[in-house]
């Protein structure tokens, strides 16, 4: 349940504006607390969410913009997001992926992700049998990783290669969990295929 402050006029907040005393409120996005008071940190509307029967969560929701900057998502991927990327490099222990979007929307800036050997299941052989440069993969973000890349995982049957081109240059279709077949030459190649 979501309701704005008392009255029909919405409560707008400026960064630094005091919203309320800490009390029973928990802090959501767009606020911070200092000396048992809750302040807004974003420019937007103050919204109170009912988290459970006793407590309310305070959030500040920025006003939606309709300019070019909302055509793509500018916020970076968070842990648990399912992202889509293109394989950039395959080494013996990691697959480096250029993340360009989630399933719903594209990112404004490409991020770098890495699928490490431990995060790819069912592969007793090396990563070259699961991924090749240029494949499009679907993976899940497991952690923020190191300063160079996010850590991704294809540990589930949902995740893995969703599109690839064969050595002959034609697109491939999945035939089972571990193989894809080229549409033109009917040669099978092994990939970690997503369902």
């Amino acid at each position, binding site marked *: 349940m979501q309701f704005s402050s008392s009255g029909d006029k919405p409560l707008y907040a400026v960064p630094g504006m005091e919203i309320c005393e800490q009390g029973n409120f928990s802090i959501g996005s767009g606020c911070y607390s200092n000396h048992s008071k809750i302040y807004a940190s*974003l420019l937007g509307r103050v919204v109170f969410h009912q988290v459970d029967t006793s407590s309310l969560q305070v959030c500040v929701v920025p006003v939606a913009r309709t300019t070019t900057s909302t055509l793509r998502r500018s916020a970076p991927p968070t842990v648990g997001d399912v992202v889509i990327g293109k394989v950039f490099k395959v080494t013996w222990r990691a697959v480096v992926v250029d993340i360009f979007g989630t399933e719903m929307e594209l990112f404004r800036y490409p991020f770098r992700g890495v699928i490490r050997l431990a995060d790819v299941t069912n592969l007793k052989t090396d990563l070259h049998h699961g991924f090749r440069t240029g494949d499009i993969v679907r993976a899940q973000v497991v952690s923020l990783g190191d300063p160079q890349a996010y850590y991704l995982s294809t540990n589930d049957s949902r995740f893995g290669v969703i599109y690839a081109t064969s050595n002959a240059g034609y697109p491939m279709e999945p035939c089972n969990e571990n193989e894809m077949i080229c549409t033109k030459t009917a040669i099978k190649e092994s990939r970690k295929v997503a369902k």
Partner: protein
Amino acid sequence: MLFQRYGPCLEPQSSLEENYQRTRPNNSLRSLVLNTRTIADAAGSGYVELGRTKVIAAVYGPRPPLRSSKGGVENAMKGRLTCEVVKSAYCSYSCESTRSQIGKGFSEEERLLSIRLVRAFEPILLLDKYPKCSIDIFVVLLEDDGSAFTAMTLATSLALADASIELVSIVASATVAISPKQEYLVDPDKTECEQAIALITVSLPLHATQLCEIYHIGKLSAEEWLSAVQLAVEVAQTVGNSMCQFLLQEMAKNEPSNQ
């Protein structure tokens, strides 16, 4: 005199030093114009006019850092703030050029302004909420008629709020000049800045209890310094309140009416 001017002087007659008269009261600001969303491509942008001083600021981010920072994992877990200030080629009224070579890199003054902006805003942004990301601020000084850094701080504040970057507070700023006649001139323009014996610029986050930057150039006694800073803080508070009112009005205007 803080600054000595050399070279040909092609300003309009009215701003030559000997004939200069301040037309407004010592305590008053020049006309303030604020605007946001002027740059469509940027995450947020702000435009400020203080009298004839004009500044535009754009904020991009949070985005992956363009230059990978050194310093390991701990530094990467916090966001990074970078800033580039550019003084446009037509910003000053005289035709002397402060760049040693036009079009090559940043001049020393621009680098100094960039560092000051970064240092002023670094405690203001909640950078912990943007790990492994960089927030980039680009500021262009379009016309410099005194109090340029004040206008830059205001424009950057507007741009950051417009970009929905989490801030501790909105930052406002004010400049006070002490004239040779020992008067405190609020929001000096270029001639007053150059004639002044001291200049104090103060940046303060509105809803916090500390200043984020004091910039002082010139020679002042301790009591004069204190009263100048207090005056600047009061002026910055009024400017900041106008900025907050402006931002609230813009939000109310842009909200769809059925909410």
